[in-house]
């Protein structure tokens, strides 16, 4: 029997669970992008009208296990400025490149990377190879689409910060500098198993395990993200937001149906998630079944104190087989203890050296 608590890191525990997922394709295979190449639209091309399946109470049935695993970055790379979509040929080339990257990673392992969560920290040389455990994004089902960035529009980037936000964030950074490893509260929220940016809202892909499950019950839609077993139970019965004075890591989501679309409105965030420093974050999400295996996921993010204008993104969410597994993060969070322990050892050594 596999005992998660005996596994040295939480990530490894998750890796073992993923290894057991029967739906993982054989190594080296990347799903052909041909079938999902077009940017998804609520109604498929060809003029054929499509009626989504309904739950017994007549609502569009979004239920199932899904992934938003993608190669599309949130922001458009500089070299693609002004180009919102790849051509079909470019997308095929991208898929080939992805296959080759995966083949190389499987052959040689992943290059060293900065896993500390601290921007600019040197890459470590710890063996930490996602592909070995079936966690490389190329080994899971991918939501292919022709967009060059998740953020839509000619810019494809998060709009500029307001001058106030720039000043505030600079102050926060300056205060944090040199104290990255002082205590648990100085470490990134993900390393503390408190919140992950992929849960959002908006829902964004994670480096691995970009899986989610939707369950619809009377007056509620539940969205569970595998990382890190976070559930939003979203009322669709007209219930108001919770009082303004109560702030939560993932905010407070309320929803309603507009024809075939689930619209979710989220407010009441803390200042820490999912876009650090946004103080009055407001997220609107739209989930529309595009076909039986695809949800078109669209979102708009606004915070007038943070950004000079609202910004929007979209990406397809693709149905997968199997079910979610438990990602118990905090329960075996030895990396957090080890990070702090390492920092104390480094300080002690530095002190001893300077004393000599």
């Amino acid at each position, binding site marked *: 029997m596999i005992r998660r608590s005996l596994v040295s890191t939480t990530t490894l525990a998750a890796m073992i669970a993923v290894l057991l997922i029967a739906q993982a394709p054989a190594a080296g295979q990347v799903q052909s992008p041909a079938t999902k190449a077009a940017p998804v639209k609520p109604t498929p091309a060809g003029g054929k009208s499509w009626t989504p399946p309904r739950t017994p109470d007549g609502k569009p049935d979004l239920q199932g296990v899904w992934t938003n695993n993608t190669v599309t970055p949130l922001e458009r790379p500089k070299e693609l400025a002004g180009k919102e979509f790849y051509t079909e040929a470019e997308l095929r080339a991208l898929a080939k490149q992805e296959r080759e990257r995966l083949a190389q990673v499987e052959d040689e392992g992943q290059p060293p990377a900065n896993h500390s969560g601290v921007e600019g920290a040197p890459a470590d040389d710890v063996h930490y190879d996602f592909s070995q455990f079936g966690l490389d994004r190329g080994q899971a089902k991918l939501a292919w689409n022709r967009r060059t960035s998740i953020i839509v529009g000619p810019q494809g980037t998060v709009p500029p910060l307001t001058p106030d936000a720039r000043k505030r964030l600079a102050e926060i950074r300056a205060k944090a500098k040199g104290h990255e490893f002082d205590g648990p509260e100085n470490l990134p929220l993900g390393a503390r198993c408190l919140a992950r940016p992929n849960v959002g809202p908006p829902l964004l892909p994670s480096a691995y395990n970009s899986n989610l499950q939707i369950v619809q019950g*009377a007056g509620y839609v*539940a969205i569970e993200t595998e990382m890190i077993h976070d559930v939003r*139970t979203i009322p669709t019965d007209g219930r108001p937001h919770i009082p303004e004075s109560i702030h939560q890591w993932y905010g407070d989501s309320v929803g309603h149906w507009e024809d075939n679309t689930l619209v979710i409105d989220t407010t009441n965030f803390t200042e820490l998630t999912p876009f650090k420093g946004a103080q009055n974050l407001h997220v609107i999400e739209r989930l529309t079944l595009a076909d039986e295996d695809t949800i078109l996921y669209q979102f708009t993010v606004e915070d007038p104190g943070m950004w000079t204008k609202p910004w929007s993104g979209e990406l397809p969410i693709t149905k997968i087989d199997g079910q979610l597994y438990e990602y118990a993060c905090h329960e075996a969070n030895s990396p957090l203890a080890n990070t702090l322990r390492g920092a104390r050892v480094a300080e002690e050594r530095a002190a001893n050296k300077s004393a000599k």
Partner: protein
Amino acid sequence: MIAGVAVLCVLSLAAPPSAAQAPAYRAPRTANGKPELSGIWQALNTADWDLEGQAAAAGPVPSLGAVFAKPPGLGVVEGGEIPYLPAMAAKKKENQANWVKLDPEVKCYLPGVPRATYLPYPFQIVQSQNTILISYEYAGAVRIINMGAPTKAPADSWMGWSNGHWEGETLVVDVTSQNEDTWFDRSGNFHSDALHVVERYTPRSADTLNYEATIEDPKIFSRPWKISMPLYRRVEKNVRLLEYKCPEFAEELLYGPLRKKSSN
């Protein structure tokens, strides 16, 4: 004859239902004809303090006085006592003596089943035809109950593996593959990785459910045993399940000694 029937009717109405009797209440139905269990529910008892019941006692933190003392409560174990194997009763006592140090709840670890049900926090049932999701406020714990053909767990986990089915008015959930790291309560009652729990959720009125859990673990107990309690619907207007992401609250306890010593 007619009078005799009337007397019988009155007699049967007046007789209190025995524990074994099926409840007379019939819950509202979902679109596919099953009892509707959706809602936000909570236990209202001291089961999380001690399944076997306890007299009031001082809490573990003197400075908290009456705010975090042990409340008195009757037990929820049928027959009163948990049937430990003799050697395991000693382990339970040891756990109890080291409660604050050893209880996974103190560290905000996922609670396992059945403890998740009677922690002093609400939980929400989102009921669909093939899947029932239970979201617990404590630690953001969650379970997906598979209502289709039973499936087998690929690995042990904190919240276990749940397969459910309907028996008349009752949702029956078979829970296996829980790891051995969860406890049943703050009194050190524990189990091994051989734990097998069968839960029964039965509507008993519009706003109450009866909850039963049969607990089997041949490594720890001499026979299966059962707990039962009512669960109450949270009926407040606009009630919601809120976040109780407690890893943050356990950080000082778990990582405080590794904090950088203040240089001033």
